[in-house]
Structures are given as C-alpha cells and as structure tokens.
C-alpha cells in the first residue's frame, strides 16, 4: 500500500529502507519525515490533535501521487500520514519516492509535501496544557505549492 492514513506510530527508517530494491533500476530514494514541534511561534506545544476528512483524505493523496507521477519518472511513492492525538517529537508524516536519478526524487518529494500541505484535508489543533487552538495555515506553504504551477 502506498498511501496510508492511520493513528499508529510509524518507523521512518524502516519505511525508507523498504523502498530500495522494490524495483530494478532504482538509483535514488528521497524521503521526508515531518515531526510535532515542541514549540510553535513562541509558545509551548504539549501535543497536537490531527483531524481529517476520511474518504477525501485518501483520494486527495492519491491525486497528488498521480500528479507527481505525471511530472517525474518515479518507481515507488509511499505516503503515511498520522491522525489523532500526537505528542511533541512524534512523527506526523512520511513521504518517500524512488526514481532512477536524484533530481526527479528530490523534486517529486518536495512537490508531494507542498501539495499535501495545501490540498489534503488535515487540520492541526495545538494543546499547551491549558488551552487549545487551531493551527493557522501559512502563506509560505501556499507560495511553496504555487512554485510548481505553470511547470510541466
């Protein structure tokens, strides 16, 4: 399975190692792991709750994978995203891609993360032990995703 949405912890190292050797001709594997920070915009974070839209989430991630495959020659695409209550330093998301050459792998991994952050229906709520607040979307994430539009 290349797209997984789940509550359980994942082992990024294990996922990464499994990507090499699945196909003949893999010359490059690039991965990204996103973690819960213990600090965000000058306030402590005790944990995050990740909400999502079951059904649409999987479809949105599959559409992002399809678009990445249309842009770069990729072998494996692996996306794992956690939901539910997550504590500081816990991994949230794993994206791994394999390709024959590094440039496609680097670019496709960045593209998938940029699109995931702006198009996949996940929402983070931060807890600091006393209060809770929804995390605001960042304009920098929109700009990062926009750099891919207009390219073929």
């Amino acid at each position: 399975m290349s797209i997984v949405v789940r509550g359980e912890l994942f082992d990024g190292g294990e996922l990464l190692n499994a990507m090499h050797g699945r196909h003949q001709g893999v010359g490059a594997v690039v991965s990204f792991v996103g973690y819960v920070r213990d600090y965000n915009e000058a306030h402590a974070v005790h944990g995050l709750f990740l909400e999502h839209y079951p059904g649409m989430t999987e479809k949105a991630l599959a559409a992002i994978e399809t678009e990445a495959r249309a842009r770069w020659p990729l072998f494996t695409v692996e996306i794992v995203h956690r939901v539910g209550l997550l504590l500081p330093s816990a991994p949230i998301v794993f994206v791994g891609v394999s390709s024959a050459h590094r440039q496609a792998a680097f670019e496709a991994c960045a593209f998938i993360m940029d699109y995931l952050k702006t198009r996949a229906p996940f929402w983070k709520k931060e807890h600091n032990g006393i209060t809770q607040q929804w995390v605001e979307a960042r304009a920098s994430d929109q700009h990062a995703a926009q750099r891919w539009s207009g390219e073929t």
Partner: protein
Amino acid sequence: MLTIHYFARYREQLGLEHEQLAWQPALTTIGALRELLVVRGGCWVELAANNLMCARNQELCNLNESLSDGDDVAFFPPVTGG
C-alpha cells in the same frame, strides 16, 4: 438531498459535523449553498470567511462548482496537515 460536512474550526463553531438539506433547484453552485447557510445568521456567518475551502463529492473545488441533487459537500478552513 444534499449532505453537508463541516470540519475543524467550523465543526466546533457550528456545533455540527454534518447535516442533510432538501435539494432546491436554486442551489446551482456551492457558492449559492454557502449563501443560503450564511443567512441563517449567528454562528453561520463564520462560513462567509474569505479563506473558506470546499469540496464536492470529496474533491477540492471552488465556490463556482456546480451542484447536483445527491451531492456530498464539505466546508472547511485552510488545511494544515503535514
């Protein structure tokens, strides 16, 4: 019949995860549906936010998207995953 889902901040502000609404021919677009919801007043004016995002049948779309009887619509704030 339309099914409407609300997520994250909107789900909390409206105190509602989802609802069903009888189909009306005047609901030509998702934008028209949003206007109908906003005129309920009170907490519903939250849906007038400029950065509101929406989906039709579990696919991201804009407010100009056409609506049909039986559609599944969702309204939510900007996404913050990853």
